[in-house]
């Protein structure tokens, strides 16, 4: 069961990411990124991170991607055209990235005996456990992020508004 769920949603993740890479129109890329983020939420649930799965759907697949699709529609972005720079990226980038992913996979799989086995329902972090750590030990960073959000809102409004 666990294996089936993992393979299904890991496959969806990789397929969505590849679709993001291959699509020419930005709105198709945005929709496939939503697929990636939603299936990552299921993988978080499999790893026992309930709160993060909910936050992933609400914040990433909801808020951030709505912002992206909104900007794509606002700017009326069309299909991207191929240029000289992108050909160089194809020639140099694709083999380099392939080598990096091969090396990383080799190291992770060779260290597999030192890593644990994941089992369904083995380690579930409840929201109350998470909030105890967040609001007791890490209260100052939490408050600092609220200041960061405020600054980001002001910056976004200042940047996007028309100058007179």
């Amino acid at each position: 069961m666990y294996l089936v769920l993992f393979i299904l949603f890991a496959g969806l993740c990789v397929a969505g990411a590849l679709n993001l890479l291959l699509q020419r129109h930005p709105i198709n890329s945005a929709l496939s990124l939503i697929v990636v983020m939603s299936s990552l939420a299921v993988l978080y649930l499999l790893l026992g991170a309930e709160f993060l799965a909910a936050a992933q759907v609400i914040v990433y697949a909801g808020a951030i991607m709505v912002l992206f699709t909104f900007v794509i529609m606002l700017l009326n972005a069309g299909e991207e055209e191929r240029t000289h720079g992108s050909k160089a990226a194809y020639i140099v980038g694709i083999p380099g990235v392939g080598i990096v992913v091969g090396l990383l996979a080799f190291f992770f799989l060779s260290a597999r005996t030192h890593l644990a086995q994941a089992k369904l329902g083995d380690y579930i972090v409840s929201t109350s456990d998470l909030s105890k750590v967040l609001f007791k030990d890490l209260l100052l960073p939490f408050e600092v992020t609220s200041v960061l959000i405020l600054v980001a809102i002001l910056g976004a409004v200042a940047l996007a508004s028309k100058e007179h």
Partner: protein
Amino acid sequence: MTIPIAWYLVLSAILFCIGVAAFLIKRNIITVFMSIELMLNAVNLSFVAFAYQWHRLQGQIFVFFVMVVAAAEAAVGLAIIIAIFRARSTLNVDQVNLMKL
């Protein structure tokens, strides 16, 4: 039925590398920005996997902070994209090669 945590790390590596490739190849500035989000998501997955591995909450807290910063970054970044589009009338990164307007 169990599966190794290493598989999650491999999946995370694959997603990160697809994000890097998309960052290099894509020419539309919005898609380039989306591939940055993909890379952040890949790193989040490995944080959650290691939080499971060591049974520590701190990994998941870190993911929470990454999400908050990503939300702020997306808001500011898209505002910058709107400002660039207003000044240049293009979204192609090859044509946005001068800092001077």
